[in-house]
């Protein structure tokens, strides 16, 4: 049980001849909530895409639960991905399906559960993210920004993943909604024992949620550790970020 959930070693990513990551190392342990911070264009979202396996590393390796996604076979790959839930920045709900079917989609893909089971699970997830049952009939285009995030989170949680990846979970939400979304995430993380990796710019989200922080700069992890450690070490980016918001 001691293998890190995510283990990245010597990762190099080149897009269009430009190096985004230059020999990046990062290990994320079980139960951590890691906030991935860094300036715009520092490759945070790209790193998240590497972890999901949407991009292949130019060099180095990304291991999920101790296995290399790009070396694994088709079946193993699918099983690994079923242990990961992703909340995309814009929600990425399937626009042609109502919310209910969006959340039911990964469950139906298993082809092992009957409709009654799926319905109960979907309603459970809706309740988990504090949406009403009747919201399930709405189309994604009819939802407000906050509801899109919640519905997308419900879908990400549908398979009870061990690892949850969040790309800017609170971007586009007003402070009040953002705070309630953060507390919801924290509560779910405690209940489900998730490991969470999130990309964020928002100090409040970081303060409210993260146990650990990794600062991305120059294609490497410039600093990593618990929030207090990184603050104590006085990383330049972090000071800047913290200075803009409230002091840590």
């Amino acid at each position: 049980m001691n293998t890190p959930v995510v283990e990245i070693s010597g990762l190099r990513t080149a897009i269009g001849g430009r190096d985004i990551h230059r020999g990046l190392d990062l290990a994320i342990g079980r139960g951590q909530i890691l906030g991935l911070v860094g300036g715009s264009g520092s490759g945070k979202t790209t790193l998240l895409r590497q972890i999901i396996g949407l991009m292949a590393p130019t060099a180095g390796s990304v291991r999920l639960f101790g296995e290399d996604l790009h070396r694994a076979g088709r079946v193993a790959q699918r099983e690994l991905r079923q242990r990961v839930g992703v909340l995309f920045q814009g929600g990425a709900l399937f626009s042609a399906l109502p919310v209910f079917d969006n959340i039911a989609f990964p469950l139906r893909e298993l082809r092992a559960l009957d409709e009654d089971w799926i319905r109960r699970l979907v309603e459970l997830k809706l309740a988990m993210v504090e949406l009403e049952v009747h919201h399930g009939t709405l189309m994604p285009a009819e939802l407000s920004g906050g509801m899109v995030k919640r519905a997308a989170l419900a879908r990400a949680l549908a398979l009870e993943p061990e690892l949850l990846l969040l790309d800017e979970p609170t971007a586009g939400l007003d402070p009040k909604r953002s705070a309630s979304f953060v507390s919801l995430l924290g509560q779910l993380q405690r209940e489900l024992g998730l490991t969470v990796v999130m990309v964020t710019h928002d100090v409040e989200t970081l303060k409210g949620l993260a146990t650990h922080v990794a600062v991305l700069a120059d294609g490497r992890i410039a600093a990593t550790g618990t929030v207090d450690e990184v603050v104590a070490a006085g990383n330049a980016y972090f000071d800047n970020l913290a200075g803009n918001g409230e002091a840590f």
Partner: protein
Amino acid sequence: MNAAPRLQVESGAVVLSGDWTLAALLPVMTTVRMSLKDGNLLRLPWDLSAVGRLDSAAAVLLWRTWQGRWPAQLKVSPTQRRVLERVAAMPSAPPAAAAGRVTPVERLGRPVLGVLDHLYGMVAVLGQILIDLAHLMRHPSEIPWKEITANIYKAGATGLPVTALVGFLIGVTLSYLSALQLRSVGADLLIVDLLGISIIRELGPVLVAVLVAGRSGSAMTAQIGVMRVTEEIDALTAMGVSRSLRVILPKILGLTAAMPLLVLWASVMALLGGMLAAWVQLDFSVVYFIERLQRAVPVANLLIGLGKGLAFGLVIAWVACHFGLRVRPNTESLSANTTRSVVTSITLVILLDALFAIATKEIGVPQL
């Protein structure tokens, strides 16, 4: 990794152990469900204290096994009890779906209303275009030249190779097949009349219209549709830029202008193909072919062909814009409307062609 979920009956109690999670359940789903089916289990005390992890999928499974009631005796850790309690709090029956019975009158009326709705929408698009044109008459500086020329280039210039290829091949085929027939009745000469009139008056415009509907019509619908999905249309309006003036009008004017030119081009190519095939097949000299073409085909045919091109271009762009504006913000609607746009415009083009044929039956056909 997960420990496999296990169910045992020990000393008169049901003992669960291992991880009861969806991932752990999947490989042993049938066995577990079989062992849970046993009705006698319901009356026994349940011991869940050896369970490693319990997720909501497994909790739903257990709750259904218990038939929606707590077992008389249950040993479970507080965390896992909370998971079960959450399942227990859910309503067990699905919310009653609204009864959707359709009467025959409704079944007949819906499509009729749908067609009327489309007609209304199309008239609205045309009306808006006319209003825009009137506005542009008074404010000529606002004419979107850049967009109009871009559309002429996109629909016209980039369509030259494919229309040339298709036109040429159709010309070759038509000429080759007719030559065989005509020779058998000794009417070789008539190949020029046949090709000239059929291509210039009929085949050229219709062929190009079908190609353009598939090529440019679908692209227009998809583009406007995606602009609606991504709220770009709203962004334009918010900037005070009229969407009809900047997005719709240039498409309609551009395609209406480009179509006659494409028709002319495709007709020339088809005649070239026909000429080539006649030369190979019937030993018809090119000079003679051109000479006879002038006498056999009155100029009125060319005007009718170009007129059709103009009308078809207008219809295709008009239909494309109409369906583009009806796209709702989801992928399904986008694909459905793109399909409808192409099918409708091709159908309308052929309908219009028939009307043209009736209206111009006295014109440009040499009377024998």
